[in-house]
C-alpha cells in the first residue's frame, strides 16, 4: 500500500457539518425563490444547477468523500460518469430518432 492510497480516517467535526447545513438551507431557500421568478427556459436550468450544488455538498462533506480514500473517490466519480453517459446516450437516441412522432 503506497503512501497516497493509505486510508487515514479523518474525523469531520460539527463545525463543518453546521456550515454545510446552513449552506443547504440557503440553497433550498434560493431554489424556491428562483422558481417563482419567470425565467423561461432558465427556470429548470437554475433549479437543477442549485440541486447539483447541494448534492455536491452532501456527497463531499456529509458522505465524507472529500476525506476518503482515492479508491472511494474514483468509485464515486466513475459512478457519476456512468450515470451521465447513460442518461445522455438515452436522450440522444430519443432526440435523433422519433422526436415529435409519438
Amino acid at each position, binding site marked *: 500500500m503506497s503512501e497516497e492510497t493509505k486510508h487515514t480516517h479523518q474525523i469531520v467535526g*460539527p463545525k463543518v457539518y453546521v456550515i454545510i447545513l446552513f449552506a443547504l438551507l440557503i440553497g433550498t431557500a434560493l431554489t424556491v425563490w428562483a*422558481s417563482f421568478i419567470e425565467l423561461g427556459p432558465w427556470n429548470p436550468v437554475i433549479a*437543477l444547477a442549485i440541486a447539483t450544488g447541494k448534492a455536491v455538498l*452532501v*456527497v463531499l462533506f456529509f458522505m465524507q468523500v472529500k476525506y476518503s*480514500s482515492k479508491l*472511494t473517490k474514483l468509485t464515486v466519480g466513475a459512478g457519476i460518469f456512468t450515470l451521465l453517459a447513460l442518461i445522455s446516450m*438515452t436522450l440522444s437516441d430519443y432526440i435523433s430518432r422519433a422526436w415529435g412522432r409519438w
Partner: protein
Amino acid sequence: MPDSSAIDHGAVTTAGDAHAEHPSYQRHHFETVEQQADASAFAMWLFLLTEVMFFGGLFTAYLIYRNWYYPAFVSASHQLNVVWGTLNTVVLILSSFTMAMGVWCAETRRRRGLVLCLTLTMTLGLVFLGIKTVEYKEKIEKHHVPGQHYSLQSFLDPAHDEAALAAGDKPLALDMARHTEIYFSLYFAMTGMHALHMIIGIGILAFMIFRARAGAYTGGHVTFVENFGFYWHFVDLVWIYLFALLYLISRHQ
C-alpha cells in the same frame, strides 16, 4: 507449512495471541483496520451506485415524458404544494445533519450524543413521511392517483380547481389532459420508492438506537453507523432532485 504461514502473517504468528495484535472487530481476512474500513466503504458505495442507477432510470423517464407531454406535465405539477415540498426538503436536510452529527458522536465515542442524534434523525424521518401522507391524501381525494378512478377534472376545467386556478392554468385538450396520468404515475413511482427507502431507513435507525443504547457503536467500531449515514444522505440526495424536478421547474409557463 508452519514456517510459511509465519512469514505470511507477519506479526500475528500464533492463534493464541492473535487478538492482542488488533481490535476484536477486525476480521482475520483483513491485514489492518484501515483496510477493513476501506473495503466496507467501497462496498457501500458500490451498493449506492446501483441505487443511483435505479433512480437515474426513473429520472430519465421523467425527463423524456416531460419533454413529450410538456403542457400536461406543467399542469399536473401545479397540483403539487410547494409549501409542503419545501418543508419536507428542510426536514430531510435537518435529518441529514443530525445523522452526520451521529456519525461524529460514534467516532468520538459519545454514547448519549449518538442515541440523541439517531433519535432525532428517526423523528425527522417520521415527520417527512407524515407530510408525505398529507400530500398523498390530497391526491387520493382529488382522484389524481393513476388507475380506474383517475379524474381529468382539474385539467379539463381548471377554473373550478383551486390549485390550477392559482397557477393560471388553461384548459387542456382531452388527449393532452389524459397524459397528466403519466406525470402522476412517475410522481407516485419516484416519491413512493423514495418513501420506501425512508421506511427501511427508519427501521434500521430503530435497530441502531436499540443497539447504540448498549454502547454498540461507541467502542471504536463505527462502520455500521458510517455506512448507514451514507445510505441516509443518499436518500436525502434523491429528494433534493425530486423536489427540484417534480415541484419547482414547472412553477411558470
